């Protein structure tokens, strides 16, 4: 029964994507291109989380921010 439900859900999505209208296909292309630009280009190369990247522990991050706030 459980397996059946998953297969039904899978088929629901498969049928939906296969029979998508032309505007649906267009917006999916836009979504995929957008997500690629956002996560594979912008996030990776331009938007690192500075505190995560530069420090290993929360204690170090706290010390850094405290230093910045009190200098």
């Amino acid at each position, binding site marked *: 029964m459980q397996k059946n439900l998953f297969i039904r859900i899978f088929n629901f999505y498969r*049928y939906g994507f296969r029979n998508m209208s032309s505007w649906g296909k267009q917006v999916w292309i*836009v*979504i995929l291109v957008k997500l690629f630009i956002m996560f594979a280009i*912008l996030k990776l190369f331009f938007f690192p989380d500075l505190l995560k990247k530069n420090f290993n522990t929360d204690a170090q991050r706290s*010390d850094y921010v*405290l230093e910045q*706030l*009190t200098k």
Partner: protein
Amino acid sequence: MLENIDLSLVNWSRGQFALTAIYHWFFVPLTLGLSFIVAFMETIYVKTGDPVWKKITHFWMTLFGINFAIGVATGIILEFEFGTNWSQYSWFVGDIFGAPLAVEGIMAFFMESTFIAVMFFGWNKVSKRFHLLSTWLVALGANLSALWILVANGWMQSPLGMQFNPETARNEMANFWEVLFSPTAVNKFLHTISSGFVLGSIFVIGIAAWFLLKKRDILFAKRSILVGAVFGLLASIYLVFTGDSSTREIVHSQPMKFASLEGLYHGQEGAGLVAIGVMSTTGSDPENENIKDFALRIEFPNLLSYMAYGNWNAFVPGVVDLVNGNPEQGIMSAREKMRRGRIVIEDLRALKEAKKRSDITTYETLKARFYDDEYKDQYFSYFGYGYLDDEMRLIPNVPLTFYSFHVMVLLGFYFVLFFVLTLIFLYRNTIEHRRWFLKVALFTIPLPYIASQAGWLVAEVGRQPWVIQDLMPTMAAVSNIDASAVQVTFWLFAAVFTALAIAEVKIMTRQIKLGPKEEGGH
């Protein structure tokens, strides 16, 4: 304090955040409003079984889908910017920002992957009632997603329900309910979603008016206008009330923003409400070039005092009172606030030094201060003022705040009138013959977008120099990175978002021109 901060870095970082937020807000309000309109239309279809209502629902659901799909995830870019450009701010806000955003993320994920799919793929796959339920859940989910973002923003405008931990330099959630139900957050949420409802309604009426102008799909267009006008009128009246309560709330939590949006430089008893005003472009105060006041104004006498305090003769503080202080009215000067803020920064510095030299006694004594209610009230609540070197920095861009506010308010009243006229012409069954009104309806579509963006300008420009009201000025929140890197990403974002906006308009225009059509399923 912060003498070495690069102002061009601060300005570019602000500009980048503003650009991305403005573009993001190009998509969001239509999602908020159209989702409910589609739900109303589908409810009528399920109740009546009339296939015309099904055709109507399909058409507007398609436009909703295009807008949703192109707008989805554009807000994540703002979160990227928090980590890179505003890392100090991100750390300082701690879990107060993290918790609502996490709830929003989880909620959006489940809503988008399940109920949106049922909405679009499920027409002939699930029962009528389950499909309708999914449409309603998408509408509720989209609006609840907005709640969490606005709670986070509301906290920045009026921080409460938190405890600052001087050990970690982070604010910790002390009372979740106080954060969630803060008057600022509640007002902001209600005002924002009702503005989305108005925008969605005008969008529907404007597009349907185009069909009437083209003499196409008359029944579809008139029924669409009916739903849009009824929902829009109720939402626009509610919008006026939420706008009023939002502004009354600002009087107490952000008096400088209130003085700026009213262009009130000099406080007065029985202050008048400026209906229309032109601000002077040259200095009108010889001692301070920032104070320009009005070249021309038309005002309702005493009304501002009444609206702010419920008393026709109450004193409303102006920009100058808030900077110089006004002992008679019990208003502390900015200099005194700056002095208190510096004491907190000194305490924080001493605490940091005590930790370094392992002086436990001093460390514990200083730490305890940050948990003492009197210290929090008398000193920590002015923490951010300690970073300011000149009290004039407390004055936001008054003309921009004033004009944005007044454009928003005037358009808000215009929308009420617009919906009333739409309903009158519909009731008299003359709307399709009033071509001038149909043209007005079509050209009204951009106006709620303008009003909505103006509202955000009031909220965000009007609260400068603060990124967190009274606690953290914008210049202390910015990461120490290269300004040129921010410029590069600014233009990258401008290009990406412009491309998305063009894609949205193109795909949507094509679907509108195709018009409503018969679809299979129940």
